[in-house]
């Protein structure tokens, strides 16, 4: 078991999911506009707030998928 390759997590691909929140928030053309508003809050603001939460959801998902031992 000392060979790193032998211990590769079979669900390593799940780590790529972490790129989603990064792309979604680092591409301002996606969200730099006022409409649609929610309760008077421009899209620019609520979109970025929602991504804080979604990013956390993605991280939890990756955490659960890549856990080596599920008991």
């Amino acid at each position, binding site marked *: *078991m*000392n060979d*790193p390759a032998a*211990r590769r997590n079979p669900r390593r691909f799940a*780590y790529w999911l*972490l*790129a989603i*929140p*990064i792309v979604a*928030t*680092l*591409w*301002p*053309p996606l969200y*730099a*506009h*006022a409409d649609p*508003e929610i*309760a*008077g*809050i*421009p899209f*620019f*603001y609520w979109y*970025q*707030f929602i*991504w*804080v*939460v979604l*990013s*956390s959801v*993605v*991280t*939890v998902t*990756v*955490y659960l998928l890549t*856990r*080596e*031992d599920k*008991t």
Partner: protein
Amino acid sequence: MILWTAVAVFLALFILVSVMGFMATRWRPSNLDDIHEWALAGRGFGTFTSWFLIGGDIYTAYTFIAVPALVYGAGALGFFALPYTTIVYPIVFVFAPRFWLVAKHRGYITYADFARERFDSRSLAFAVAFTGILATMPYIALQLVGMQVVIAGLGFTGQGLLGDLPVIVAFAILAIYTYRGGLRAPAMVAFVKDALIYITIIGASIVLVSKLGGFAHIFQTASAVLAQRPKPGTIILPPQSFTAYATLSLGSGLALFMYPHAITGVLSAKNTTVIKRNMALIPAYSVLLGLNALFGFMAIAAGVHAASPNAAVPLLFVKMFPQWFVGMSFAAIAIGALVPAAIMSIAAANLFTRSIYKEYIKPACSGPEETRVARYVSLAVKAGALLFVLLLPTQFAIYFQLLAGAWILQTLPTILIGLYTRRLHRRALFVGWLAGMITATWMGIVTGYTPTITLHLGGFSLAGYIGLFALTLNLIVTIVGTFICDGLGVGRGQDATSPTDYLDDTGVASRTVVRKLSVT
């Protein structure tokens, strides 16, 4: 005019955390003369404590003052703090557990320790330690600035030594209990700090939105006022600011966990599961930071006219809230300065002790002596930051901190890439670092200490964060340098880490750990 009720609440909370700070030595009692105990609390913190500690460590008092100040002054661009603190956790989720493992197996307490062994290079370790200390000093100084702002907000506006006395006393108390208890002290104080921050920001947001006539009115007023400013701002990011916004977010996100204090918090976790869970849980603080950023617009909507943008939020609170709430929220900010300041001084002390004192001054120093030196240095670092703030104009600390983010980013190739591969040559990494440091400093100076610069290449122009431009050059130099060094046959040194150092303990031990954790 001094707000006495607010002062009373403020003092009561401050005394409470000071007592807690002193009691921290009795928390999970252990031998505090061991540097792993003093500096990293024995790497024993669980998910709950780490959440408060890391959150309290990176969402600093200055953040809570400066982010709304930027929004108050510049509008939408100031909101980059939100994508910045959104992207950082997925990134840290990937690399921090790996660093924690190698640090645990090899006994590292800093990034510089890792650079030393991984690349067999004293100079690279020195570069990482030097950059870390250099970048941390102004950051500590800014925590003091945050404290000064709220103390002035309470009505203490005395001049000279008398005006500075509250900050000096607060910092002296902090210095003593950090000297004694090490990382346990800020961890203990962090519970109170973060509880206060959550109550203050959520409470204030609800009250302010209803008092100021709803979000629609707040945004409309802010938009109208920003458009009238000498340097007009907008509430929606204009296309010409897209690259600045994105590169500031990305660069700041990459820089954050290169800071010594951020990794100190991570290394105090008791296992990698704690780190991974927290990368999903700490974003709760980012929601707070976003709400807090909107206080900048609320200050505009409330008709606050701040001489310096940093005073916008304190003035807003004094104007809109009863004194007891003002006292509580200002205490939240002041205590919020103590936690990161303590961790930063511990982290800087560790860097100095391990990579400068032990490396160049006294290689044969014993374990207890190592801890003693780190303790004294933690005091010296705080005293230095205090002098920095008291003797130099505030603007100086702000300029310095702006460069600090760009500087610390230059250690990324050694640490982050080095964590995965040794393909980059140690000498090339050093030269790349130097090129990045010089470029970042030069760009900072020519732009008059603004974080972004516009580069013109032929007919094409690109505005972006100076730290990221400097990092790009750093990487190019490092890669080209690697080919040159290898071509000339320059020695690569021995890697003291082995591939298994980066892995979880295999077999039965690891399974038991996982099972125990899933029960709790």
